[in-house]
């Protein structure tokens, strides 16, 4: 299973979601996408995104002003 990274720091709604979706499309089922973002709204949004799309939110954490997410492609 491959892992991909997405740096969405400095981007505002809805760009982190749009870019994550674009990258998820290029991955295979089971692959993991690691995302870093600075938009505080992305915490709620990635959770909602995963609930709706069926991709699995493996982790959601904050390190200072950086929010990190791990999403497993369905």
């Amino acid at each position, binding site marked *: 299973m491959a892992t991909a990274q997405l740096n969405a720091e400095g981007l*505002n709604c*809805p760009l982190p*979601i749009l870019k994550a979706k674009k990258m998820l499309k290029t991955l295979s089922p089971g692959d993991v996408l690691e995302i870093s973002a600075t*938009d505080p709204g992305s915490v709620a949004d990635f959770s909602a995104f995963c609930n709706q799309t069926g991709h699995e939110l493996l982790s959601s954490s904050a390190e200072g002003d950086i929010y990190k997410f791990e999403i497993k492609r369905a």
Partner: protein
Amino acid sequence: MLDGDQMDNAKSMSIIVTKGSLDWAYPPFILATTAAAMDLNVTMFFTFYGLPLLKKKLNMKFTPLGNPAMEMPMMGGHMAMPNLLSVMPGVGGMAGMMMKNLMKKKGVASIEDLREAAVESDVRMIACQMTLDLFEYSLDDMIDGIELGGAATYIESAAKSDINLFI
């Protein structure tokens, strides 16, 4: 695998886009692109002042006129935009520049980028035929990949949609 166009039970959303100023262009394009990213089938119907948002070359204006609730962040506080000021020549253009600079600084996507994302994610875009005739627009001035339609075309789509918005 999870793409909306391949899912029989995909949710769907329709948006009627009626306003084409810089600020009003954002809500429909943000919602359409996000819904498409969340595997919804999305239809946008561009009518009246929303129609110019389909022009190849966008030239969106912005004015605080008629928007007394608008405040711009300014040196740690907020500055209201008095309506009286807005009618002065040049103030509308200046406010538009301020808004575009602020959006760039805050990492907000441009409408051009969001529209491109909408096209890429197969959002169905319908140009209102009546508005096209009324304001004498040509389909040649519009981006590729749009279709022409009227109220019935929209209603057919809306009747099948889970979410219908008028913006």
